[in-house]
């Protein structure tokens, strides 16, 4: 059985401008010890979906299920959820400064967190806090434990957040853009730390990021999201070498490649849609170079395609059209042309 099983999750918010449909039906599973990467651009619903799972979206309309070890987190009472959140499922966020209270010492905040979940003495908890800070690589932890968050550098704050997240040895760690605010050399330190701790404690990780480089580094399986929907779901190797969905292809093409200096990047034309007015049919079709007649009318379901063992994609292109090589792209364009009506061809 999977550690976390999310099934057909929908999240929407009422705004003065209408209903904002942030997540429109996602399903995924995380096994113990594995790393699931969720990639997407701003507004793709990647953060909202995980925040909903741990009960951090207030005032949202939610449907679907999210079973953690068999228990549905979405229907749990607040007090039940409190025992799970922090202890079983831990989170780290992009901005460590806004997740640490500026008025309290770092050590105190870790102690508080441990004592909220376990009946241990202050002294015992403090000893654990020092150990944890040492574990995540804070120099001279027994002194730094009494520092305030502003006395820590950005990288140290994120380390402190990781120490806090791991204090109760959680089974699942949700990392929401944990290194986006950090410099590359510090990012490398933090990613190495997360990998090492994952190996040591067997924690499952959901890594939310917009950076495909981080996904290539850490993820086992990857879900690509766009406009609140999953577009593609597969293992990372298949995703990079044999993508099926044109959005994935576009994302990979948008990255500067080694040796491609000076040549134009294959950018995706247009802009992501507003979640208040998501286009009919496939949400990506207005930007898609392969768009066919069918794409504007019918929303493609997630279905099996022939890249890897468990490779699913929400696109009307035939399941065997995977990959980024030139002949595949030509075949796709040909298929797309066949799918378009002749009238549209003439106008184009």
């Amino acid at each position, binding site marked *: 059985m999977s550690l976390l099983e999310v099934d057909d999750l929908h999240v929407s918010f009422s705004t003065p401008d209408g209903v904002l449909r942030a997540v429109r039906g996602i399903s995924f599973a995380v096994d113990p010890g594995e790393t699931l990467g969720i990639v997407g651009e701003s507004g793709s619903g990647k953060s909202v979906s995980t925040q909903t799972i741990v009960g951090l979206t207030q005032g949202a309309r939610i449907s679907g299920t999210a079973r953690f070890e068999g228990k549905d987190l979405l229907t749990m009472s607040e007090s039940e959820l409190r025992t799970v959140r922090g202890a079983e499922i831990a989170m780290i966020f992009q901005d460590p400064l806004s997740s640490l209270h500026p008025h309290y010492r770092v050590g105190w905040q870790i102690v508080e967190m441990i004592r909220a979940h376990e009946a241990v003495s202050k002294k015992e908890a403090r000893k654990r806090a020092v150990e944890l800070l040492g574990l995540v690589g804070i120099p001279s932890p027994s002194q730094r434990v009494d520092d305030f968050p502003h006395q820590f550098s950005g990288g140290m704050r994120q380390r402190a957040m990781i120490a806090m997240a791991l204090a109760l040895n959680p089974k699942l760690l949700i990392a929401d853009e944990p290194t986006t605010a950090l410099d590359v050399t510090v990012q*490398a*330190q933090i990613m190495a730390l997360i990998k090492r701790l994952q190996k040591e404690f067997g924690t499952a990780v959901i890594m939310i990021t917009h950076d495909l*480089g981080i996904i*290539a580094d850490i993820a086992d399986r990857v879900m690509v999201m766009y406009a609140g929907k999953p577009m593609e779901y597969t293992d990372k190797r298949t995703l990079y070498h044999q993508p099926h969905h044109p959005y994935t292809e576009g994302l990979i093409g948008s990255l500067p490649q080694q040796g491609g200096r000076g040549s134009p990047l294959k950018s995706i034309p247009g*802009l*992501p849609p507003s979640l208040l007015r998501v286009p009919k049919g496939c949400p990506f079709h207005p930007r898609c170079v392969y768009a066919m007649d069918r794409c504007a009318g019918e929303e493609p379901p997630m279905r099996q395609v022939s890249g890897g063992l468990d490779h699913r994609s929400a696109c009307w292109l035939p399941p065997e059209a995977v990959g980024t090589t030139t002949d595949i792209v030509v075949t796709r364009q040909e298929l797309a042309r066949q799918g378009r009506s002749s009238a549209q061809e003439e106008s184009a």
Partner: protein
Amino acid sequence: MTEEARTGRTQRDTLLQLVDVVKHFPVPSDRLFGGKREHVHAVDGVSLDVRRGETIGLVGESGCGKSTLARCITRLHDVTSGTVSFDGRNISDLSVSQLKPYRRKMQMVFQDPYGSLNPRRRVGSIIGDPFAIHGMGKGADRKTKVQELMELVGLNPEHYNRFPAEFSGGQRQRIGLARALALRPELVVCDEPVSALDVSIQAQIINLLADLQGKLGLTYIFIAHDLSVVRHVSDRIAVMYLGRIVEVADTEELFARPRHPYTKALLSAVPTPDPDLVNERDQIILSGDVPSPIRPPSGCRFHPRCPRAQSRCTTEDPVLNVKDGDVSDHAAACHFPVADGEPLVMSQKEAL
């Protein structure tokens, strides 16, 4: 030794020349009387030549002084000492009115497309500002010029009367770019122009910048912390650390043969978007954080984090010069430069 003497290039190739540029900011002191006032050594002796028509990338971690340097170049900051010469003319001591003709030739594009546009003004008037300041074009003429610019950067000229809030992040960056290009500058300093944008939009803006460079013959100083982006756009790259340039070379040369240990570590820390290469490369993980620029370390500023540091590094400040066996355009500031292919010995375990 100036870059010029070293490379034997003539004055005409050089559009912008920095000689020993220093920028210190005073730190507010908490002592009422006496005591020496402390300074943030944001830029501490940078010499660099920017050639006409090239794109030079400026990379480094936060706090290394790359943005301060950009602001010294465009005279948004006055330098503490040293000179900035544009087209052979020292502009670092010009008065505001004397500077005005040079301001037209140097423009800046900022990171935050939200913060650099006045939310209460219409886009047309924001882009038309440079014309107003320099007294060029009136009324309908100015409007035509602005709409031409909007078309040039890929905006719909009909959106002339809209407010910045009605545009997306990528479009706002295009507005900032249109404003920068209004007076047909020769040099555009781009300070993290794509960092706030999503990947797919980032690619659009990078392509636009390249396109405009071809059309208008621009020289770019391109500041970014994303090395894969810098590698894609730059002809040459200068790496900064704590207010100094530690290495400068042609892009492919720098990536192929980094000589400074910091450059090598920085390049290896960049995540590779290819799962097959991730495990092959040997990633060097630096320990610790960048020291405070208020009291930078003695000698080589990188020595407290450097796996190769020896006693000489703690006392003697290394000079930025060409190392043995390197092409004349490749300079590094290190006493013990890394040889081609030599590993920087340090395993991931030790670093943590």
